[in-house]
């Protein structure tokens, strides 16, 4: 039987309190805050982070296929699977495909996974609502990831699943639209409710299951209230409804249902039954049962871990700048040139997977890869050496007010890895007053910048705060 072997999540560090949007425009807003991708994040970088969280304690080379689900890919033409596969150090012949456009592509990707293989599913979204609109308040950014397969390590069995297609134009963004458009909300919520009644009740009957036997129902529907109406219509009590994270994260597009599922699994016990219902032009429905193996799952950050570590003082003006919604004076420095494609090509393995070299003669790890050892000067005696996941400390640092950065001052640190090796890199998700010599940091996958339409991905350091350490 197909099941989930492991899960992970990612929520960006920066949170925008919705009232700040209201204060800017002089209008009332929803309560709570939304997670917003930093200027150096997008659906690919957040997806990689969620997958790294998912793959804690597993061998990434065992993965046969990777499915990346997003409605906010960095390119309309050029895939992201190869970027993700390199960043996660997956085997070269891993299969992959992108599930795009649909807001339920995350759950559809889980359903598409072949149970005889190990499939990594990544659902990630970074949608931008038009300023002053409801979507702007409503949308949040985030990602979730699952390792799907079978065997004794499965923590959640997929007991049964069903998909239905129900064509509907209620929420859309065309090839040329910058922002999501919506039909009158009543249309979406009415059709959704109808589909849930028609599909979920017979699905539960078929599985000899009733609503009261389900511990948590995970519903990602249209708007703010449709999920509770739907749950109630098919017999669920309020305490069975999984928190949709609206007040803390926002509606994360195709990653919404997957992130709620991660949230549910963080509190699930062996034997628990979960029902997942994801809506967008039809439904994906899954009945899940938690196994004993969940108690053996290695500790991870997950939704809970990332929720606790945040900067909830993000300003609305920063958010506008990071999303390119506010045209500002360019820095008085030369423009960032597009990276050289041949140089990128030569460096993909090194730069995306953050793999340096380690000298066979003297054992010194070094990044970037060197042919002549920095320590003993022996030539071409290097083994690949990956720095991802290694603990490191800030040796010295600077706050660069002169460098062109979307979030000045640019924090640059000399980072020494505890097991050897050094890199000089940017520090992200860090307040200038926080940085200090000796600070514990870890590497995080980021989009450094976009220039000439090319998204350049690499790694930065971020502080390890006590609350999130795993």
């Amino acid at each position, binding site marked *: 039987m197909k099941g989930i072997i492991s899960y992970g999540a990612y929520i960006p560090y920066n949170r925008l309190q919705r009232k700040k949007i209201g204060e800017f425009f002089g209008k009332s807003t929803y309560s709570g805050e939304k997670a917003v991708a930093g200027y150096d994040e997008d659906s690919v970088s957040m997806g990689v982070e969620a997958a790294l969280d998912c793959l804690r304690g597993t061998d990434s080379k065992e993965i046969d296929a990777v499915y990346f689900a997003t409605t906010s890919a960095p390119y309309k033409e050029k895939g992201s699977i190869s970027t993700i596969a390199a960043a996660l150090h997956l085997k070269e012949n891993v299969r992959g495909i992108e599930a795009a456009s649909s807001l339920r592509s995350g759950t559809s990707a889980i359903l598409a996974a072949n149970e005889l293989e190990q499939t990594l599913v990544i659902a990630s979204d970074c949608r931008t609502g038009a300023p002053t609109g409801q979507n702007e308040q409503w949308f949040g950014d985030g990602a979730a990831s699952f390792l799907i397969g079978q065997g004794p390590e499965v923590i959640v069995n997929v007991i049964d699943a069903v998909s239905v297609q129900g064509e509907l134009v209620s929420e859309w963004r065309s090839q040329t639209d910058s922002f999501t458009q919506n039909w009158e909300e009543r249309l979406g919520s009415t059709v959704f409710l109808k589909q849930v009644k028609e599909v979920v009740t017979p699905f539960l009957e078929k599985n000899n299951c009733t609503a009261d036997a389900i511990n948590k129902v995970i519903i990602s529907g249209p708007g703010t209230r449709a999920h509770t109406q739907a749950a109630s219509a098919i017999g669920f009590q309020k305490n069975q409804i999984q928190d949709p994270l609206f007040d803390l994260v926002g509606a994360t597009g195709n990653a919404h249902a997957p992130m709620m599922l991660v949230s549910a699994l963080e509190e699930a016990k062996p034997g628990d039954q979960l029902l997942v219902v994801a809506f967008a032009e039809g439904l994906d429905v899954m009945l899940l049962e938690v196994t004993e193996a969940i108690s053996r799952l290695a500790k991870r950050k997950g939704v809970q871990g990332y929720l606790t570590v945040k900067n909830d003082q993000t300003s609305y003006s920063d958010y506008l700048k990071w999303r390119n919604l506010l045209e500002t004076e360019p820095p008085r420095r030369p423009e960032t040139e597009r*990276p050289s494609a041949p140089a990128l090509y030569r460096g993909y393995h090194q730069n995306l997977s953050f793999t340096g070299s380690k000298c066979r003669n003297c054992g010194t790890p070094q990044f970037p890869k060197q042919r002549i050892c920095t320590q003993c000067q022996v030539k071409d005696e290097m083994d690949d050496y990956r720095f991802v996941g290694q603990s490191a400390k800030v040796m010295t640092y*600077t706050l*660069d*007010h002169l*460098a062109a950065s979307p979030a000045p*001052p640019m924090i*640059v640190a000399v980072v020494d890895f505890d097991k050897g090796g050094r890199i*000089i890199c940017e520090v992200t998700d860090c307040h200038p007053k926080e940085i200090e010599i000796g600070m514990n940091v870890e590497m995080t996958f980021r989009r*450094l910048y976009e220039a000439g339409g090319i998204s350049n991905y690499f790694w930065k350091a971020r502080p390890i705060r006590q609350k999130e350490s795993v």
Partner: protein
Amino acid sequence: MSRKGISDKVAVIGMGCTRFAEHWDKSVDDLLVDAAYEAFADAGIEPADIEAAWLGTMISGYAGITLSGPLKTQFIPVTRVENMCATGSEAFRNACYAVASGAYDIVLAIGVEKLKDSGFSGLNSPKPPNDGTAPNFSAPASFSFLAPAYFEKYGLSTEQGREVLSRIAWKNHYNGSLNPKAQYRNEVPMEKISKSPMVAAPLGIMDCSGVADGAAAAIIVRTEDAHKYRKDPMYVKALSIAAGPGDGRLRQDFDFTSIKENVVSSQAAYREAGIKDPRKEISMAEVHDCFTPTELVIYEDLGFSERGQGWKDVLNGVFELGGELPVNPDGGLKSFGHPIGASGLRMLYEMYLQFQGRAGKRQLDNPKIGLTHNLGGTPMQCVSFVSIVGKELS
């Protein structure tokens, strides 16, 4: 690393230096002509006497024709050299070696840079096409790494560290206030330096050298010919350059309180010049004060101060005009700005003036041995140049 050297084999018989400034009304060509013709006049020679030339410039022109065009030299060899911030010194070094080899009798070393035409403040050097993953931090940021590391290692409080850095900048501005060719010719109060706006914390704008346009030139002959031109030439005792392997980027044992390229290049120069105790034997030095912590680390790397003691020497005034070993008597990069290709030759120009007693209000009392030093690159990886020059033959 030089094993034999060319101590006392060549001499400088003429020098010229433009004022370093924001020369909105002068081109690269103008600056080259002004510096070269001042040097020709100083040496008492005709332009046509020059047999070969070395032009140092980092970003203001390519090839020897950058010089031969404006000067209308008549088909003599001109070599354009570049070694980042040591570019001017590198032009001088190559010119000296060519004369010492016997290939030429009289040559010109000249450096120029026009930084103010770029439209940006600071130095913006073009980079070869690359993968764009290296953090694009500024020059002051790379040198600001030195300050917290030094303070931490030697137990200075932030306030103590601040005072030391400010004192270095204050000293250089004071010296520059006495120099008509400096970009900035005013004293700057300690308070203003300490509270200047942050550029790359903990460095403020007043911890940074200025940005200027300028050119400087030297005429070099063999020592035996020098007295044909003047009674008081400047003798070259040692020339040394060390290019680093990049330890600072790769190795944890690089702790940002010392730059090995400085240590190696200065020790090589001391060997070549026969200097055993630099603090005692050297009368004056022009060092690469691109940012205040750079000068602090240089004191220790060049053996002017014991390790961990440089900051105390600063506070005791050791390196001030009236101190035991005046450093940057002309005002340094701090007062002159740093037109890359010209700076190394500008430093030698101050040595030359001081030996000849032409340094005006900042004239030192009969200096005999001088040192110039440049550092091109970052603390993590650089080229470091050291010259020893003298008033007399050894």
